[in-house]
């Protein structure tokens, strides 16, 4: 068994080294954010700094409204995730379990736009928001994010719902359960693995979306976190320290959320994914 152990040690060493290399950009971000404010052009792009200082974080909190931008991101992301789950699960239920007028046409239309890139629609959505008076408001992002997230979510949820045994549904119907009751009391509670995937996916896309936010949100007060490096790049242009402190601050919440969701995500994917 020693050969096997040696092989395992080798594999372990390989993964460790690779992981360290993998982390370099993130470590660099952290290191530069702790650079003393009057230092410039540190060696190795910033992996080596002379001295450590917290001043950049103080500066950022005094001069930039990180919390406000964080709230903006939350105010856009959470409603869009919520709406996507509700709207797409309703639609997916109908598509999977009900018969209605032009059902297949709707499904194919939706599935066609599965790959619709947001940049394609940035000009018209900008104009629609303008017509509806939604530019510069949270809704101006929430609605398009939801609309563009729904097809993907429907596809995931529909296949999950479709695999649900018909007998249980029929039994519930005999007990006088309405269609909505079946959706709400029977389907949804057992569909959490698929819903989890939808939530995580939608959260990531809404939280990190950039181009639509860039053209929709013109007042600083409503700009979400992804725009923050741009908003303050004029102000902190000459100062890499505060800039990287900002980058660290906008990255931290996502890492924390991911860390907390991590187990959940793998099990969600496993439960939902790939039963060939």
């Amino acid at each position: 068994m020693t050969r096997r152990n040696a092989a395992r040690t080798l594999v372990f060493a390989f993964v460790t080294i690779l992981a360290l290399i993998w982390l370099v950009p993130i470590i660099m971000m952290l290191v530069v954010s702790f650079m003393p404010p009057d230092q410039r052009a540190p060696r190795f792009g910033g992996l080596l700094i002379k001295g450590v200082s917290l001043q950049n974080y103080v500066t950022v909190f005094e001069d930039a409204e990180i919390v406000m931008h964080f709230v903006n991101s939350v105010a856009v992301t959470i409603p869009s995730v919520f709406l996507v789950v509700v709207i797409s699960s309703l639609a997916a239920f109908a598509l999977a379990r009900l018969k209605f007028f032009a059902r297949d046409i709707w499904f194919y239309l939706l599935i066609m736009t599965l790959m619709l890139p947001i940049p394609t629609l940035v000009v018209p959505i900008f104009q629609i928001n303008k017509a509806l008076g939604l530019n510069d408001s949270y809704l101006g992002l929430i609605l398009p994010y939801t609309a563009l997230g729904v097809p993907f979510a429907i596809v995931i949820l529909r296949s999950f719902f479709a695999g649900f045994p018909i007998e249980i549904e029929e039994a519930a119907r005999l007990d006088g359960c309405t269609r909505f009751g079946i959706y709400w009391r029977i389907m949804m509670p057992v569909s959490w693995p698929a819903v989890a995937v939808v939530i995580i996916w939608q959260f990531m896309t809404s939280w990190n979306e950039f181009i639509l936010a860039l053209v929709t949100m013109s007042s600083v007060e409503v700009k979400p976190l992804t725009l923050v490096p741009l908003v303050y790049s004029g102000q902190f242009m000459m100062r890499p320290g505060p800039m990287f402190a900002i980058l660290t601050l906008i990255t931290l919440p996502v890492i924390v959320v991911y860390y907390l969701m991590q187990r959940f995500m793998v099990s969600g994917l496993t439960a939902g994914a790939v039963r060939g």
Partner: protein
Amino acid sequence: MYKKFLLVICLLLILTMSVSVFAQDQVTIRFRSWSPVINTTLAMIEAFNEDNPNITIEPDITNYPEYLVDLQTMASADALPDLVGLQPGALTQQYREHLMPMQDCAVATWGEDWQDQFYPIGIEQARLGNPEGDDNIYGLPVLTHTINMWYTVPVFEEAGVEGPPTTYDELKELADMFNSMGVAPVMIGATDGWIRRDIYMQLIHNIAPGLIYEAEDGNASFTEEPFVEAMTWWKRFFDDGIFQIGALGMTHYPAAVEQIQGGRAAMFPMGAWWQQQAANPNPPPLDQNIQGYAPFLFPDVTGEGQPTDLLGGIDVMMGVSRNTAHPEEACKVITDWISGAGAQALINTYNDLPAYIGLEPEYFGSERQKGIWELFTKEWLPTVKYARELKNSDVKQALENALAGVAAGEMTPAEGMQLLEDARDASM
């Protein structure tokens, strides 16, 4: 310093809020721009509010590319803020329909001969690109500047170099030496189109002063020899290692600036605005009182003789939205920021040279710093005849593209200039 500053702002906020409860005639002016930076803007607002407590100014300062996007968003929603920062030429012309003519405001503030109180280049450029017969001024100049070169004093000293180069041979000799020392000879972040253009404008100015504006108007061809020659020089700067390695993949702001501040550049193209480095918080040693840098004229690389005049123009001007509910108050704010208490607060940060003649910072950190300021305001700025900016945005874009293409070795200088010729013909 910051704490004090914050305290003042908080007090001001409380003050304005409590005032607004009592005063009926409280007016709010929204201001958007990329320049001046937010801290300076806040200082200007504070100075303005000392005499004008009834006008609240809400500033939003973002960096330039994003500001352009925001401006478009707001203009198409017909919701331009009361006060906007503008650049002369293409940008101002694009929003002309949304802007209010400002000459009446100027006359009311400074009298009939108001134009004489500004540096001539500022007035001339404020109208840049106006259609025939339209003599309106859609934005009033706030800051002006020249474009030129700077060198890093300690880097020169360490290498035992006496002074800045004046010819191409000297420049090349210095470049070889600095390259071997691991220092960037001329540090340029050529990812940014404007800095590519600045270099080209100085090259063509060296070869044929004034010709490019003729060509822009269709009275000369961009494919003529002087233009191609300037483009060839541009390419040579890359091939001969005058610019640092990888210059095309670097932004001028902030990437090149950081290396400059770190003392890793011998020379760099910048303008009068570089003096503002001294006013930034926590300045690195070179930036303090700009002790580490000295300005110099773009060398006579082409051997045609060094021009005595510099290129320059308006750094930032300000306009008022046609839809503003408070034109008088907006006028008051702008003019204060040009020549009043707000202007003084602005100039005190050495942000750039004033457009209004006679303003000076109240304080210099050193005699040397004061000397540099006076070199710009007394000797260089008054000589400025030609604009740093082009007025036709299509030609301007074509020039930036051509410079990138030629530098990348993807087109010849002649092919590059053909792009400009085509762009001008298409837009005329």
